[in-house]
């Protein structure tokens, strides 16, 4: 279970009595986290800035009713995810992701792999092409349907534990796992498609 740190407890108390200086502190502590999350979830700066404002406003408004059953950061992440999801749902619908089997390599009737899989995992960390590579990944993340994107961002980008992400998204562990796996498969496939069509800065597999 999440225990609320003494620092957070003091901050919460001050926000509850509407101490103005606490607002500055809340923002210093959380703005980068919320902004990063909002950027990843919405995929564009303007939406992310709107999400950010809504989130802090909601936190300030609702702090009186915050029962401190989860940590302050889990609560704030939950608000941020919900605000971003509401925004994403207003956009034109993106269809569901294909099933796991269709996102992985093709398999023969005998259960053997039926295609050549390019290994693009050798990209040197400092390579100039790495930037380009990361841009492809960012674009692919933007193409993920919202329900998958939220899971992926909380787990793989923000690095939250499965338990924490479940609490924030109100999902069961199996549902979370399945969405995360499918999101990763989708991203891997998108990257593989890029690597196969125009290899960027990769070492030869036999080097």
């Amino acid at each position, binding site marked *: 279970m999440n225990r609320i740190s003494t620092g957070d407890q003091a901050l919460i108390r001050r926000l509850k009595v*509407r101490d*103005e200086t606490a*607002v*500055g502190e809340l*923002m210093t502590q959380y*703005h*980068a*986290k*919320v*902004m*990063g*999350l909002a*950027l*990843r979830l919405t995929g564009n700066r303007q939406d992310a*800035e709107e999400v*950010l*404002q809504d989130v*802090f*406003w909601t936190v*300030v*408004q609702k702090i009186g009713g915050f029962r401190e059953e989860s940590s302050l950061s889990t609560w704030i992440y939950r608000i941020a995810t919900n605000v971003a999801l509401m925004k994403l749902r207003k956009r034109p619908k993106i269809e569901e992701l294909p099933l*796991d*089997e269709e996102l*992985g*390599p093709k*398999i023969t009737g*005998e*259960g*053997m*792999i039926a*295609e*050549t*899989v*390019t*290994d*693009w*995992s050798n*990209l040197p960390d400092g390579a100039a092409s790495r930037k380009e*590579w*990361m841009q492809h*990944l*960012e674009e692919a*993340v933007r193409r993920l349907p919202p329900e998958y994107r939220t899971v*992926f961002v909380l787990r*793989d*980008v*923000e*690095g939250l534990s499965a338990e924490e992400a479940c609490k924030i998204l109100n999902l069961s562990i199996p549902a979370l*796992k399945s969405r*995360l*796996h499918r999101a*990763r*498969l989708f*991203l*891997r496939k998108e*990257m*593989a498609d890029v690597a196969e069509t125009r290899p960027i800065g990769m070492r030869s597999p036999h080097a």
Partner: protein
Amino acid sequence: MLKCRDINGLLHDYAEGLLELSVHKELDRHLSDCPGCLAFVKTYKETIRLSKDLRTGEMPPELQEKLESFLKAKLAEKPKTLWDRLRSRFGRGCC
């Protein structure tokens, strides 16, 4: 014996280190003589590794200031006391 078909379903737990040791070892054995699955698993893990670097959380300083003053102003105007509410309803323009 694991077949290529089984890898996809085990991959999430394999990458998270959640597989039972015996299954984990069996998967490793399969990867050691299946270059296709090995490339699949390596690129799946690389996707996870690269995703960590997507994290950027900078907020333009002017936005930070704007937001902070907006919140402080909102905070100052709430909660309204009974007196505030009566004054806003009946007292406008009288004094």
